[in-house]
């Protein structure tokens, strides 16, 4: 199946899904209910119901401070909610520590990149490989137990690095990469985990326009290889370009959902971005 066919298939699956916040999806991989997180007097996240369609590319948008990153943190076990339940692939994840969430196949990246500076780019990648025999202390001492697995992982890492145009950097310290390259490394490293769902927090911030295009291609390829993608992005052109479905957050709540072209027209979205009482369309140009 070509990329266009996949996009068609992913979009077709969502045809007929009502354009309202918290709507049910035909085949959800992630279902969240009543997830709330309060910081002092501020309710940063207050999500009533949320479903994520399997095999789709879903964009999570919303103004600064809407609670997108906090919502990511809650879902992936990096923060714990005051209330709420959520299941991934039918398995409840509430209260599960972050590393176990990652092992279930739900892997996230960070808005502020976390390159492991004093390790090489290749070592960064290898750290992502799951179920390594040599990560047991005693097995680690005997190289024979993990050499062949390490070789296979290295091959896969190099393939991914080549894909992200980082292969020339493979032996450099990750700390020497530029901001955009770190974003790429973090995404590639997350893919080493072989996830079912990748959650990317502003993967394209600070990446130059040419590379952005190829990043968009990568994201499409993820869908082609059967992964589900949820990503936060402020650039509406990117969102329109790549996503099958868009979820809009404002002040902690999901205020709108829909296909990328239509959702921008919704009054709730315009309100969320520009405040109420105005008549500007979001369709032309990116919001502030």
């Amino acid at each position, binding site marked *: 199946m070509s990329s266009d066919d996949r996009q068609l298939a992913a979009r077709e699956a969502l045809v007929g899904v009502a354009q309202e916040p918290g709507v049910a999806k035909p085949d959800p991989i992630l279902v969240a209910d009543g997830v709330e997180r309060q910081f002092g007097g501020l309710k940063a996240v207050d999500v009533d119901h949320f479903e994520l369609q399997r095999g789709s590319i879903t964009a999570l948008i919303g103004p600064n401070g809407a609670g997108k990153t906090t919502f990511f943190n809650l879902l*992936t076990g*990096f923060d714990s909610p005051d209330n709420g339940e959520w299941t991934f692939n039918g398995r409840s994840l509430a209260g599960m*520590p*972050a*590393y*176990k969430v*990652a*092992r279930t196949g739900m*892997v*996230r*990246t*960070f808005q502020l990149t*976390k*390159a*492991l*500076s*004093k*390790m090489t780019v290749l*070592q960064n990648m*290898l*750290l*992502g490989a*799951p179920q*390594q*025999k*040599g*990560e*047991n*202390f005693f*097995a*680690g*001492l*005997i*190289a024979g137990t*993990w050499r062949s697995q*390490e070789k296979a992982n290295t091959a896969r890492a190099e393939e991914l690095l080549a894909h992200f145009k980082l292969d020339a950097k493979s032996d450099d*310290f990750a*700390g*020497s990469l530029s901001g955009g390259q770190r974003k790429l490394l973090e995404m590639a*490293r*997350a893919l*080493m*985990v072989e996830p079912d769902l990748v959650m990317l927090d502003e993967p394209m911030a600070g990446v130059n326009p040419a590379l952005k295009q190829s990043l968009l291609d990568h994201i499409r390829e993820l869908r082609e290889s059967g992964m589900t993608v949820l990503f936060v992005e402020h650039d509406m052109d990117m969102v329109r370009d790549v996503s099958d479905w868009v979820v809009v957050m404002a002040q902690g709540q999901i205020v709108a959902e829909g296909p990328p072209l239509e959702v921008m027209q919704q009054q709730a979205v315009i309100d969320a971005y520009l405040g109420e009482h105005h008549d500007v369309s979001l369709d032309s140009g990116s919001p502030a």
Partner: protein
Amino acid sequence: MDFNLIFSQAITQGLGVQAVIFALAAIGLNVHFGYTGLLNFGQAAFLAVAAYGLGVTVATLGLSLWVGVFVGIAAAVLLALLLGIPTLRLRADYLAIVTIATAEIVRLIVRSVTLRDVFGGSDGINRFADEFYALNPFAAGLTLGPLNFSRNDLFVVVVGWVLVLVSCLIVFLAMRSPWGRVLKGIREDEDAVRSLGKNVYSYKLQSLVLGGVLGCLGGFVFAISSQSVQPDNYGTDLTFFAWAALILGGAARVFGPVLGSILFWFLLVFINVALTEAVRVGYITFIDGTQVGQIQFWILGLSLMLLMIYRPQGILGDKRELAFDVK
């Protein structure tokens, strides 16, 4: 001035039992700090529980020295778990505070009057290592160029350096493995490691145990070499000298702590003997011999400061890595 004497003493100390003890302590710290980024300011406690484990088993309970070694290692593992379980989920500085306090608590317990029957109070425990010296294969001491060891010292020093090399080998093997890679990842950013599905807490605990056990070997060498354990030998000085050795040699390098410890003791004794000689011969008149002990630490401290300014990565460290310390 007797330069022969100055160098002979400095080299003998630089390769002597003190250097072995601090090399082992610093190798443990290297696992904690150099590779995992854990701030342990209570390394003395690991040496203390090993030394006392050995001493109490032999002198108080009348069991074999080898049982004592086992008890000492078990005590170090237990101490690591005790320190790590409550603190390693918290921010890095909590471990630092808890370790420094725990080390003092350990020292105060073993020197307490109430427990005198077990630990010997401030006198400690003495003469429990005959079983070790009975194994001495050397017929005589060693005088080789500037080196000068008695028969028993020679045995302890040889066994000690073998322990240092074995420890270095373990660190080398562990740190080149995927296990070591996880530790280095934790040092850089533990949330990133968590997001990749690694149980950070468990690895930190394992690091604390490994570094504690390697460090505790220094406690055995200390106890056996002097045939005694005394509480005040395990104060904060010991921990900070070990840190100095680690930073001097270069953290996160296999031989960094070893080189650091050798240099540390070489310099300390060199300064001491050189000053004493200079005072004796009359080159220096504004201090007397009894003040040398304090002044040697001033000079050593000054040298360490200069090293940190001009070579902050330590002797074996990699300058390139420092560039990334600013986040």
